[in-house]
């Protein structure tokens, strides 16, 4: 600038914004799955992955087809889905109720938050023997384990979501003399819904983990029992078939919640 015989230079300003806004590209996930499976398939065929390390994906698929054709798939899947559905429904609906109570009442908050904080970190699997003593070795103890495991994360997510509801909307409700019940059902609950649903995503993943744990004890049928049996026989094809079914189950649950979110929360941008 201070140079006396300065030459004015022109330069395009470099772009330095953008980024930090990841978009989900659905097909990319499939491509990644495809490449991982193709890599393992080729590896096991060529031989740089030994058959003891990983089974061939094609063999796993054949095992799955056999399972399907023999009708055993449904015999394992239906009890599992029932346990998952009953346990998770009980746990998450109780969790939502308790979470709302904590979000709304000082008494519930003061008394229940420490209790929840105390039971949250307990590995629920460790309590399985206790549940067996309390509820017997049949279905009830499995429901109880899954329900208990989904309960605490749902409570925490729900009361956090209720806390985050815009207070100015609640004040608006009061200023129009809406009843307490209306404020809760028409303002607090819809406002907390995004948080509750994202909490449910985590709770249901935990429910699937606990489902397998529960079925490893005293279950004749169920995906967990199937995996346990395959594991103790070192039948890797079956083991991986079971694991793949669990993964598919997890993806379907997550997709279902995604659909519910799209329906219930279409008011968000």
């Amino acid at each position, binding site marked *: 600038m201070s140079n006396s015989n300065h030459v004015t230079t022109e330069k395009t300003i470099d772009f330095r914004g953008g980024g930090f806004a990841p978009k989900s590209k659905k097909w990319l996930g499939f491509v990644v799955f495809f490449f991982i499976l193709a890599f393992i398939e080729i590896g096991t065929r060529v031989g740089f992955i030994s058959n003891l390390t990983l089974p061939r994906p094609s063999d796993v698929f054949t095992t799955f087809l056999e399972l399907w054709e023999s009708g055993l798939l449904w015999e394992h899947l239906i009890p599992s889905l029932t346990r998952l559905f009953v346990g998770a429904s009980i746990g998450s609906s109780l969790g939502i109720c308790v979470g709302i109570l904590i979000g709304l009442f000082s008494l519930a908050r003061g008394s229940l938050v420490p209790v929840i904080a105390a039971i949250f970190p307990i590995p629920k699997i460790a309590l399985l023997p206790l549940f067996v003593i309390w509820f017997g070795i049949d279905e009830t103890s499995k429901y109880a384990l899954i329900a208990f495991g989904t309960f605490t994360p749902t409570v925490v997510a729900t009361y956090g979501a209720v806390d985050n509801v815009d207070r*100015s*909307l609640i*004040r*608006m409700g*009061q*200023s*129009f*003399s*809406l*009843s307490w019940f*209306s404020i809760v059902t*028409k*303002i607090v609950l*819809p*406002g907390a819904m995004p948080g509750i649903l994202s909490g449910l995503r985590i709770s249901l993943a935990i429910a699937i983990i606990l489902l397998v744990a529960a079925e490893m004890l005293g279950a004749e049928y169920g995906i967990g029992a199937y995996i346990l049996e395959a594991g103790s026989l070192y039948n890797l094809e079956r083991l991986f078939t079971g694991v793949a079914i669990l993964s598919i189950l997890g993806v379907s649950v997550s997709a279902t919640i995604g659909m519910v979110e799209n329906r219930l*929360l279409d*008011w*968000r*941008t």
Partner: protein
Amino acid sequence: MDLRLQGIGHQYGSMEIMQDINLDIPAGKIVCIVGPSGCGKSTLLRIIGGLEKATSGRVIQIGEPPSESINPLTYIFQDFALLPWRTVEGNISLVLEDHGIRGSKANAIITDVLARTKLTDFRKAYPKQLSGGMKQRVAISRALAVKPAVMLMDEPLSALDSQTRELLMDDLINLWTREPFTAVYVTHNLNEAVRLGHSIVVLSRRPGKIREVVDIATPLADRKLGDVELERQQEHLWNLMREEAVEADKELIDV
């Protein structure tokens, strides 16, 4: 229905927010409350409508609200306070449902208030689809739907850009001219105060006390942009407030 504030004082803990506020709010008039930030003008408005309890003094209602009034003391908020999950129509029916007004009766009220605020075409829109000015129009029509005896407006135009603010001020003046309503209008914008206020209450900095009440005789409909008399009033208000504003500004730094 008139309102009277009698010796209102308020404290947060040991901090005194306002002191001995006595004020009459006559029916059919717009009373503007101006003051430097932190003088408690929004708190005062919340006290008037019963959203906050004053430490001392009371707000008295003189006379009965008109029988058709569904929610006598009705607020309009700076941040609009619309439910994002309800349409324009749904946001208005929200405040009617609880008072047992549903179906065709609610429909008639909604159609009427939307027409009065020029929102008829936006009936099915969601708040996220609307501009700030439109959102505040929805909030105004929601307030009109419950036929308030007194409108309590908490910086209703402060979140809007200046062009939209002008447009909405004209709309408010038109609404008032067609059917005079009673309002308490809190603002920090002196121009809004001289355009909309029949009387303007100037509060001092914390603890807020009434410094002066300025009455403006010019009818609302005749107050035009750049009116000499209004300019003079606005300057007078600014002189009253300047010192307070400077002091209030310093106070915040001290805290």
